[in-house]
C-alpha cells in the first residue's frame, strides 16, 4: 500500500469537496431544482475528461500529483450520492423536474466529457 499516494488523494479530496460545498453555498437554497450539484458534476466531467485525455499533462506531473487531482480533487468535487438523494426528493414533489434532472445530468455529463476530450485533443494538434 502506497501511503504517500493515499495521502495525496485525500488532500485532493479535501480540496474537491470544499469546492463542491462552496458552490452549494453560492446557489443558496431558494431553487427547487438542484443547480449546485448539477454545476459541480458537469464542470467535473469536463475537467476530468480534459485531464485524462490531454497528451502532455500526465507526463509533466508526478504520479501522486496526477492521481491526487484526477481521482482525489475532481472525483470528490463531483458526487453521485447527492444526485440520487436529490432526485428522489424531487420525485415526490415534482416528477417532471426529477426526470429532467436525471436526463440533464446524464446527457449533460456525457456532453461535457466529450467537450473535455475534444479540448484535450486540440492541445495535441497544437504541439
Amino acid at each position, binding site marked *: 500500500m502506497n501511503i504517500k499516494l493515499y495521502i495525496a488523494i*485525500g488532500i485532493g*479530496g479535501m480540496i474537491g469537496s470544499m469546492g463542491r460545498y462552496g458552490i452549494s453555498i453560492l446557489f443558496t437554497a431558494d431553487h427547487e431544482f438542484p443547480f449546485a450539484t448539477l454545476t459541480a458534476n458537469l464542470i467535473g466531467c469536463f475537467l476530468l475528461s480534459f485531464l485524462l485525455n490531454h497528451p502532455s499533462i500526465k507526463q509533466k506531473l508526478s504520479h501522486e500529483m496526477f492521481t491526487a487531482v484526477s481521482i482525489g480533487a475532481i472525483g470528490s468535487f463531483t458526487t453521485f450520492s447527492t444526485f440520487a438523494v436529490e432526485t428522489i426528493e424531487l420525485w415526490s414533489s415534482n416528477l417532471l423536474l426529477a426526470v429532467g434532472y436525471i436526463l440533464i445530468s446524464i446527457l449533460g455529463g456525457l456532453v461535457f466529457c466529450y467537450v473535455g476530450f475534444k479540448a484535450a485533443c486540440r492541445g495535441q494538434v497544437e504541439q
Partner: protein
Amino acid sequence: MSFFLVALGGFTGSITRFYISNKVNKRLIGTWIANITGSFLLAALFILFKTEIIPEWLWVLAGIGYCGAYTTFSTFGNETLQLIFAKKYKIAFSYVGSSLAMSLIVVFSVFYIFM
C-alpha cells in the same frame, strides 16, 4: 467550521473510494459499488438529519463531506464515454442504467421505510 468538516469528510471519502477501486481492481465495478453504497449511506444520513436524530455537524461531515467525496460523477461519466468510444454500447447502457436504477431504488427504499 463547516468547511473544515467537509474537508475532513472529503479526505476520508476519496481515500475509501480509491481503496475500493484498488481492491476490486475492475474500473467500472469499483465506481459502481462506491456510488450505490454511498447513495444508501447518504439517504440514511439524510433521514437521520431531517428527523433530528443526528446533529447538523455530523450531517456536514459524513453526508456532504464523506458521502459526497466517496461517490463520484465525473469518473462515472468518463467511464461511460470510454465505453461509447469503444463501441461497447450495451455495456455503456447497462452501466448507466444499473447505476441509476440501483441508486434510485436504494434511496427510495430508505426514504419509504424510514420517513
